[in-house]
């Protein structure tokens, strides 16, 4: 095939050919963004813990305590997996990890209730996962509140009409609404930001590998000895275009296909998403090009970029609340497109925010894109000068 004439198109075509031929890069720029989201979505697809096995130590053995236990067992959160006669027995089950919580109903449970006093039910929860505690507590507190209302209305206060009972039960009603993730699940919360993080990390790994290979092949230079590689702008634009276009495709695969297959929140409008992806991917691409220029061997980029994923997720304020992040780490996070991109994507796609609502993030992404683009240009200018110094151009 005849090679195209314009330098930009030439660089673009070269990079594309290299990319397709190199399985090492293909793994990161095609396989990773295609397969990893599916894997992650499948891990978290169950959304939350259901029917957490809990054992109960019923020292009371009354009609009342059995009613309480039955109600706990009926909740979707908790399942009574064993009845123990003593705490020692229950503790042993906990140590063997057969149950993740102990419900202790004291000896004087119903006696105190009949006397009109408060009675204390103990919940001992395993903290192997924070979710165990949350689920067990939620299930049991719901039952206790429900019973409390019954006791209050039926036994303690003499009411005359059904409406009066209803009001006594709930003097003020409250409604709790979980917005944008109505099941309160893990997948809907974690997968959307992870998708965006995968884009950035895959770009860094792919570009890093490609540049590391160039350095190995062209004796420490990132550009081949060719007359088309004389213009900084042509190289930076041509190279960037390959990855930008490819990842735009990947971005839409994630925002549309993965989101739809796994029933993740999808409130974003097409053009809003598009206007987000353009600056995000530009910023990621040029950040990848800039940082990769410090890589001299192709495998080094794996060492450098891979384990950044987890810290970047934390810096973005998606898993650890942004309001609790110290200013120093906020400043560090601001350097990476992921910090802004994850939040903007979650808001547009998950919460139906408009572009105006994410103005700060989109602006920051454009600024980062511009800065990294200029830095990449500087690097290539320097590299071209080095190449000319070695007079590799004919």
């Amino acid at each position: 095939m005849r090679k195209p004439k314009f330098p930009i198109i030439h660089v673009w075509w070269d990079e594309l050919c290299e990319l397709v031929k190199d399985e090492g890069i293909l793994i990161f720029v095609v396989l990773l963004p295609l397969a990893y989201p599916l894997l992650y979505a499948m891990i978290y697809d169950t959304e939350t813990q259901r029917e957490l096995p809990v054992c109960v130590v019923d020292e009371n053995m009354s009609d009342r305590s059995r009613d309480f236990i039955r109600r706990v067992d009926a909740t979707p959160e908790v399942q009574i997996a064993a009845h123990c006669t003593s705490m020692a027995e229950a503790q042993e089950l906990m140590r063997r990890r057969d149950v993740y919580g102990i419900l202790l109903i004291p000896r004087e449970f119903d006696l105190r209730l009949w006397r009109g006093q408060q009675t204390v039910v103990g919940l001992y929860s395993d903290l192997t996962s924070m979710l165990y505690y949350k689920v067990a507590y939620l299930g049991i507190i719901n039952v206790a509140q429900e019973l409390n209302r019954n006791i209050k209305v039926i036994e303690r206060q003499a009411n005359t009409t059904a409406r009066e009972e209803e009001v006594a039960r709930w003097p003020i009603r409250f409604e709790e609404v979980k917005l944008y993730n109505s099941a309160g699940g893990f997948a809907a919360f974690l997968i959307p930001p992870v998708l965006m993080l995968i884009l950035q990390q895959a770009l860094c790994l792919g570009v890093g590998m490609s540049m590391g290979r160039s350095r190995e092949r062209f004796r420490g230079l990132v550009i081949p000895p060719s007359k088309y590689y004389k213009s900084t702008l042509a190289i930076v634009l041509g190279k960037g275009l390959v990855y930008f276009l490819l990842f735009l495709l990947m971005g839409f695969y994630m925002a549309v296909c993965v989101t739809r297959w796994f029933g993740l929140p999808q409130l974003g409008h097409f053009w809003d998403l598009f206007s987000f992806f353009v600056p995000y991917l530009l910023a990621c691409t040029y950040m990848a090009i800039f940082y990769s220029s410090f890589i001299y061997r192709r495998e080094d980029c794996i060492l450098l970029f891979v384990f950044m994923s987890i810290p970047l997720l934390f810096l973005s304020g998606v898993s650890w609340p942004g309001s609790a992040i110290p200013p120093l780490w906020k400043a560090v996070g601001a350097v990476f497109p992921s910090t802004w991109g994850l939040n903007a994507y979650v808001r547009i796609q998950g919460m139906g925010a408009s572009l105006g609502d994410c103005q700060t993030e989109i602006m920051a992404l454009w600024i980062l894109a511009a800065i990294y683009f200029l830095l990449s240009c500087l690097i290539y200018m320097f590299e071209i000068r080095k190449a000319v110094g070695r007079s590799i151009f004919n």
Partner: protein
Amino acid sequence: MKETNHNQPLAYDSSRQEHERGIAAAIRALWHITRRELRTFGQRPIFLIIMFVAPLGFLWMFTSLMQAGLPTKLPAALVDEDDTHVTRQLTRILGTMEETNFVVQTKSFTEAREAMQRGEVYAIFCIPKGTTEKALTQRQPVISFYTNDSYYVPASLLMKDMRKMGEMAGLAMTRATMRAKGFRDDQIMGTLQPIVIEAHPLGNAYLNYSVVLSNLIVPGLLMIVIMLTTSYTFGNEWKRGKQKKLYNMGKGNIGIIILGKLLPQTMLYTIIFWLIDLVFYSYLQFPCACGVPRMMLWGFLAVLSSQGFGLLMFEAFPGQMRMAMSACSLLGVMQFSLAGFSFPVSAMALPFQWLSNIFPLHHYFLIYVNQALNGYSISYVWTSVVALVAIYLLPQFFAFRLEDALLNKEYKE
């Protein structure tokens, strides 16, 4: 060496001497390979960055990032459409609660929702118009709260506060009625809240997130680093075309070659792991029911097991450094999800529950919870200890693949 053996007078002595010389030679070979390995570290600055700067940097980062332990004073919006002294009292009480910080106070719900979409608040507490009037005339007003569950942790924490507040608001009204009827306060409490749930989160009574997360993410990151550098250091031999030289240095003894190459890293990473343990349990005083030395032992085991995992990946793709490292990184990042500290393994689909067993981090996590957090006997998680040892030993059974690669495979770009 063999020629001199022929001159020995007694067969018994000769074989014994040969054996002793064999050991001496093995130790010498081991030392040569180890020394060569240490020299490589010195030549490649990336090694030093990855080995020291990254793990210690992350130790600093995560412990300072989650210094608060439990995030408090999370931004929330208050929509008070009613705006009476009663609702103001309600919101003042809510404002004193641990998690809630009303940064937006408005009369319009739309404004609050927009603040939420801009990411300024994590929750909205809404008191509709007429709440006070309805409450005073016993017509059951409804207050509502909205949390943004796209941000899971703050939403859960705020929901807890607001629920408590919603519950309390109702109880306060009943209390006022009962007081008017002449009940004593202890009688009133027995009516309002007959059954009290007393929660005991075992091992981490303050629900300090930093304890759980730092304790696993920092060692987990170190474990990824170990896996990657293990495949890197082996692959580097092929890359530099020195694999045959390595084979000769090890006198063809594959065990010596593996040990010699891994030994410097084992020592370095163990020291880093111990440093992390000391910072966690001695300096930051994270709960450690089993004592620091015991955790150091498990840390050592985790280092060995991660090296085994890295080597296993390299043996899966012998001589192909890049494929081995790709596999290590893809699986290594996944082990954070499958370790089960944020989302429990027991809640995942069955295939993932099985899969979680191949990851060192999952087993280290179970041992950590059993030992440091709960202080139980190690016999309850003996399977995880065995698994860690098994992951370390497994590559020995596939060493023939490495030997074959050392002799016959070249670096492939």
